[in-house]
């Protein structure tokens, strides 16, 4: 057995995937090959330390954030697109109307108050789409999900 083959078997041994026969062959090779003995010992140390690495705890509000994302997605899919764009335009329309009422007719207090109340009321009933709060980076939360297909047992996005 050459060193290249021995190194392949070393990987299998470390992963408990070597056959009995492969182990015996490797053992013979190691008797006369200090370089592969070193590779085995070295890889074992790397494996031990890698396995002991611990990630910081995941964020405690993970589930809440996921559910918020799902709720936003729900709103976006249940409100028809045309209605959504109309709703998104509402603040602009409101501003224009307020400007029309306030600027030229600022003396007519009652009229203005009535106009703004109606507008504010209608905006309160809007779904949250107009002011969706994005998490830290919008590129991930708002990126459209790419076509999703499933082939045999694997999924690809």
């Amino acid at each position, binding site marked *: 057995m050459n060193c290249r083959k021995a*190194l*392949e078997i*070393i*990987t*299998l041994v*470390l*992963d408990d*995937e070597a056959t009995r026969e492969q182990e015996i062959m490797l053992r013979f090779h190691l008797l006369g090959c200090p370089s592969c003995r070193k*590779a085995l010992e*070295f*890889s074992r*140390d*790397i*494996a031990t*330390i*890698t*396995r*002991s*690495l*611990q*990630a*910081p*705890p*995941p*964020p405690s509000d*993970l*589930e809440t*954030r*996921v559910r918020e*994302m*799902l709720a936003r*997605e729900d709103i976006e899919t249940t409100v028809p697109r045309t209605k959504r764009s109309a709703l998104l335009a509402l603040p602009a329309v409101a501003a224009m109307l307020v400007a029309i009422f306030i600027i030229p007719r600022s003396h007519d207090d009652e009229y203005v108050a009535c106009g703004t109340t109606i507008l504010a009321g209608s905006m309160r009933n809007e779904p949250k789409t107009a002011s969706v709060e994005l*998490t*830290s*980076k919008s590129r*991930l*939360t708002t990126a459209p*999900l790419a076509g*999703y297909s*499933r082939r045999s*047992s*694997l*999924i*690809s*996005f």
Partner: protein
Amino acid sequence: MSGRIIVSKPAEKDSRSDSQLMVDLCDGDEDAFSEIVRRFQSPIYSLLIRMTGNEEDAKELLQLTFFRVYKYRRNYDPEKKFVNWIFTIASNLAKKEWKRKSRWMSVPLEHVHLSSPVSTAPHYDAGRVQLRASIEEAIDRLPSHYREPFLLREMEQMSYEDIAEILGVRLGTVKSRINRARAKLREMLNDVWEEWK
């Protein structure tokens, strides 16, 4: 006069299998989703941290992984291993992020040390701490197609078959990539290891 002792019942461990949880979730059991998050958040997070190289991106991809688990819950086949399905989702997201980043940046990944060396090393010794830090950096420097199978094997102790399914590659490819990852790590870490021995 005897005082009443109120013994709070410890939260019972959910003994349902992963795939049963998914079936229950599809039937409208929202608690099943909470349990899935509880079970898989840590392993998925540690893989994502190592794959992205920073906590911020890992957190976002973690969130997106569970979002997709819920959203595509009906695409999951309960006959298959759930762990492979969820890791495939996380892995695909990490790859996508990696591609997106490497298109725009050529700067190396920021190195995140997974464990605080002083508090977690069982027998604190400076050489081991140095070796641990070097190993983490070396893993981060591995090309992603070597790093991922290596991490799934070492950190998640997955079988070659499962890794092949998650990554969508052949069994032989998994073996050779893990072997190459180890060879590259030995190459990168030779000096620090010799010093530590």
